[in-house]
């Protein structure tokens, strides 16, 4: 496959993203250089696009992805892959706040740690973090799985809907309305099936699977006891 070099620098982001769309339409892979942690790179890319970013990127990289395969060599800023529907994003280092916010499909793989509210309001797909997920990760996740191999920060899985947070390692504290349950062998096998293509299966892990306690789902504001939960 032909590879196109895209130089970011201080060019207008709209021009850069149009170059990416054009290269994707021609079926060319892209290597993006001189990224300077700029925002909004690689947003709305179509299926079959393949990009690798040299260095770090800023906010919203890979947002609204509809199938592209994106690799980021180092770190990314807030809201990586926000609203993505399909595709695969790999981050070599740290992923900033709200990684995978409101995503509905696809996979995000973070090799370092992820910041606070990882997977906030996600509605599908999977986020795999090899390190630790930050404060309040999984907040109000509707569906999908957040899988952290290196522990979790405080207020983990706060106010979940039907999403799941899986953690191997220490959890600083649980959020509101979280139940920690022992996963079945079938459920662990499902998670391993997600980890397997990433080469991350380890049968010795002690998983904590966090799901909603469903007590907030039916919150009755006139019930004084309900407020004690918060």
């Amino acid at each position, binding site marked *: 496959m032909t590879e196109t070099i895209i130089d970011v620098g201080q060019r207008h982001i709209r021009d850069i993203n149009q170059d990416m769309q054009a290269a994707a339409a021609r079926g060319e892979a892209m290597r993006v250089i001189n990224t*300077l*942690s*700029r*925002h909004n790179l690689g947003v709305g890319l179509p299926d079959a696009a393949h990009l690798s970013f040299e*260095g*770090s990127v*800023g*906010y919203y990289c890979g947002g609204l992805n509809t199938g592209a395969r994106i690799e980021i060599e*180092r*770190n990314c*800023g*807030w809201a990586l892959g926000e609203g993505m529907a399909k595709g695969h994003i790999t981050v070599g280092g*740290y992923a*900033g*706040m709200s990684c995978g916010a409101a995503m509905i499909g696809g996979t995000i793989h973070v090799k370092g740690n992820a*910041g*606070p*509210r990882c997977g906030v309001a996600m509605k599908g797909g999977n986020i795999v973090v090899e390190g630790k997920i*930050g*404060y*309040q990760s999984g907040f109000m996740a509707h569906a999908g799985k957040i899988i952290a191999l290196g522990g979790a*920060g*405080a207020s983990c899985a706060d106010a979940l809907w039907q999403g799941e947070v899986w953690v191997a390692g220490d959890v600083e504290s649980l959020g509101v309305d979280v139940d920690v349950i022992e996963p079945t062998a079938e459920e662990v096998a499902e998670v391993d099936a997600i980890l397997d293509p990433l080469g991350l299966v380890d049968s010795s892990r002690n998983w904590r699977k966090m799901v909603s306690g469903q007590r907030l789902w039916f919150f009755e504001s006139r019930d004084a006891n309900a407020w004690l939960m918060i």
Partner: protein
Amino acid sequence: MCGIAGRILSTPGTVGRDLVNLMDAQKHRGADSTGFAVYTAPRDTGYVLRGMGFDKNKLDHDLDDVQHLLKQNGGDLLGDPVILTDANKHYCFRLEISDPKDLTAWVRDADTLCDRIEIQSCGRSLEIIKDIGGAEEVANKHGVRDMIGSHGLGHARLATESSVLPNASHPFWARPFSDVAIVHNGQITDYFTQRDRLRRQGYQFLTENDSELIAVWVSDQMQAGLTMEQALKKSITSIDGVFTFMIATQDGIGFAKDRFAMKPLVVIDQAGDLAAATEEQAVRRVFAEESDVINHDGPSLFGIWGVGNRSLAA
């Protein structure tokens, strides 16, 4: 959604230029006004005042009154005022003064003129420059790029809690504490109550901006005996709202973040040569090469970066 920045040079240099670059990269975070707090070479005696008058037609009269009050307090102007005027009604000034007998008393007297003229910084080293417009515009008007110093702060303001006025811009000086300045990204929700308490202690607030509170609050805590680090830690549980703020003194820059991890802070620290900002793309304007970035994304964080020292960030 304001943008803030801090810069510490390992040896004094073009801190003004770097702060302009840091804020130009964050101009989209606040188009209402831009400001800079620059710590220039400290003087042994005397202060530099930066400020603003609200009607340039009364400029001579205003400055005469400032000088009169200064003389009454045992000080005087050193040299001619530097005045900046443009198409706006307000004007900006820079004065060098000798030491008044009691700085606090003089500031209190000068603040009696605050319906016409406002002292916006007073320091042996600190100079605050702020005005309406973006980083380029403010920098060009005030010559910020040419300012040489050891460290400083920058701010791009998206007005939320108070009016779009040049004097409601950041940074804020912690009046009457010389050489203390603050920039803030966020909203303080209990500022009216906190400000009222500090007013009853005798402090003056000249704007309705919530951020002016933080500068005085931290300084007051330090006056009461806390170290800056202790005051910053206490601010996280004592001040209500969402915030990331940076506070600077002649010795360095401190920061604190709220309990909810709502506002970002990104730092590159290369052995004391440090840039901090709301967005990573801003610090990359100073350190263009890929380097280790510290993301202070978590809740309840605080720390201090000393001038000439390595990071002590928590």
